[in-house]
């Protein structure tokens, strides 16, 4: 008898889980419940919809064979009868359920912000809505200079808008970079004609009579523009789980096998409360690479396997910002005496490695990201780096350093 898998959410976690389930269980019956306006797409690419630089078709995923997608939203879970209730009244029974409901943009508690009706950038229709109101010669404010904010600013600029990025902290992409890396990124962003205002405390948002939006700062400065995008991070969409009695803290609580507190219900992606394996701290959502890995791991366990989720990294990001490659993995801004740091500024690039005892725990690469994957693997695998550390920023460092293999005897020509 075939097992019925229901997956709520068709983002990175949901889609990768569906793909993996289909690979592992050929008789699987898979239903994806998706409340998006478009078929499954690659979320990190939506800034291209603003810029118009890519055909929208290139954002879509190849449809999954043997999977039914049910559009609409899930309104309730019935764990006792193993069913999902949909908004249109349908009831979808499941044998195994995956909650991959993702996260939603967070509006900081700034007076007047919600009623100023700002744009956000999380979904396909968000990007299209921004695109529709962009006029050459117009202006935009982007509140929040994280990855999404900076990408959004870079996508708006080619449309001929005056763009200003406003950030509460003292640097761009504050959570993934250090001061020096951020300064390099800032130069690249400013070179695109984008204005950057850092260390800003916004106290009030106003929708003006001419429909422009104003942000008022604590120090009295005012920024006004035709459109306002808020990119202040995301919060997990855990309401469904919470209402069903599933344990939720900052996100859905899962065990090492990505099982929730209710039998046959799993969770993966941004909705999960992930914990950084290096620091033990809980991780703000929004990491695509990790959502994919979680989806695959949950899938393996849903089909009856026993695959432990190896844990997440709070920082695991690759970006190309105005032609500047940036990769940031692990602990890139260590605090405390337990750490040793190696930095190279060769060739105009900035490359920084962070060690804790004999292990590599962080890599921050700007301008030259070659070999980043070797560092990522060393961080993930907690490789003993003590004998390699002095040479790890050499231009010729690579995986070859790990090969102690000796071919025992010559092999006859084949």
């Amino acid at each position, binding site marked *: 008898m075939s097992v019925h898998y229901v997956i709520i959410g068709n983002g990175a976690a949901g889609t*990768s889980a569906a793909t993996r389930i289909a690979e592992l269980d050929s008789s699987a019956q898979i239903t994806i419940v998706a409340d998006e306006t478009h078929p499954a797409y*690659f979320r*990190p*690419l939506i800034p*291209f919809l603003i810029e118009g630089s*890519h055909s929208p078709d*290139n954002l*879509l*995923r*190849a449809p999954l064979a043997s999977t039914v997608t049910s559009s609409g939203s899930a309104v309730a879970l019935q764990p006792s009868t193993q069913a999902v209730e949909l908004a249109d009244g349908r009831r979808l029974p499941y044998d195994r359920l995956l909650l991959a409901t993702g996260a939603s943009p967070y509006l900081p508690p700034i007076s007047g912000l919600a009623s100023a009706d700002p744009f956000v950038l999380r979904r396909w229709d968000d990007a299209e809505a921004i695109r529709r109101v962009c006029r050459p010669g117009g202006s935009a404010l982007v509140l929040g200079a994280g990855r999404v904010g900076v990408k959004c600013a870079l996508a708006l600029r080619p449309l001929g808008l005056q763009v200003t990025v406003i950030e509460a902290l003292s640097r761009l992409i504050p959570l993934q970079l250090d001061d020096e890396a951020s300064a390099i990124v800032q130069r690249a962003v400013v070179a695109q004609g984008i204005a950057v205002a850092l260390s800003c405390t916004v106290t009030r948002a106003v929708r003006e009579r001419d429909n422009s939006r104003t942000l008022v700062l604590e120090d009295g400065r005012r920024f006004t523009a035709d459109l306002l995008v808020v990119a202040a991070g995301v919060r997990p969409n855990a309401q469904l789980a919470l209402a069903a009695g599933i344990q939720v803290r900052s996100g859905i609580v899962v065990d090492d096998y990505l099982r929730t507190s209710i039998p046959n219900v799993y969770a993966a992606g941004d909705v999960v409360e992930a914990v950084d394996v290096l620091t033990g701290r809980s991780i703000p959502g929004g990491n*695509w*690479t990790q959502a*994919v*890995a979680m989806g*695959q791991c949950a899938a393996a366990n849903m089909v009856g396997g026993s695959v432990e989720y190896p844990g997440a990294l709070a920082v*695991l*990001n*690759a*970006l*190309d910002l105005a*032609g500047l*490659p940036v*990769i940031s*993995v692990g602990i890139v801004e260590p605090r405390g005496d337990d750490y040793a740091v190696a930095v190279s500024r060769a060739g105009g690039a900035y490359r920084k490695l962070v060690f804790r005892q004999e292990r590599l725990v962080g890599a921050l690469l700007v301008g030259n*990201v*070659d*070999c*980043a*994957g*070797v560092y*990522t*693997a060393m961080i993930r695998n907690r490789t003993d780096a003590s004998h390699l550390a002095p040479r790890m920023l050499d231009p*010729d460092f*690579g*995986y*070859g*350093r790990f*090969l*102690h*293999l*000796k*071919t*025992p*005897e*010559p*092999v*006859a*020509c*084949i």
Partner: protein
Amino acid sequence: MKDIFVRLDRCVGCRTCELECATAHSSSLSLYSAISETPRPRRRLFVESGVGQPVPVLCRQCADAACLSSCIGGALYRDPLSSAVRQRVERCVGCWTCVMVCPYGVVGRQIDGRRVAVKCDRCPDRVSPACVDACPTRALVYVEAEELSAGRRRDIAITAKG
């Protein structure tokens, strides 16, 4: 399924494989014109200074390939025939996520012209990959794993006997 194997004892670090790899991925397919092409053709394997000996490091076309599952644009795909991880280059957006996750560090970047990731595609248009054909010492071989291990067993048996 054939794989590219490295016989470390034979590699002398001449880097002919790198040259021929880049040439095989140029538009002119000739070393002399390839060097003046834009974007400059790039090698997809790397002869590194290993531990006391040169080591060609190349894509293993991993069964559970990190580059493939983390590709944010759907540019990488598994070719069902060769089981190589190949690229629809028009869909690559140059985000470098594959560069970040490849544990062998063998995904490169093309940065002149369109900015796209560059990885070993096992030379789809050739009977055997360019690097293998080029290797003057036959340090690189393109064989079935069983074939290689059978050859080795035979050699070890001969050595033991003789």
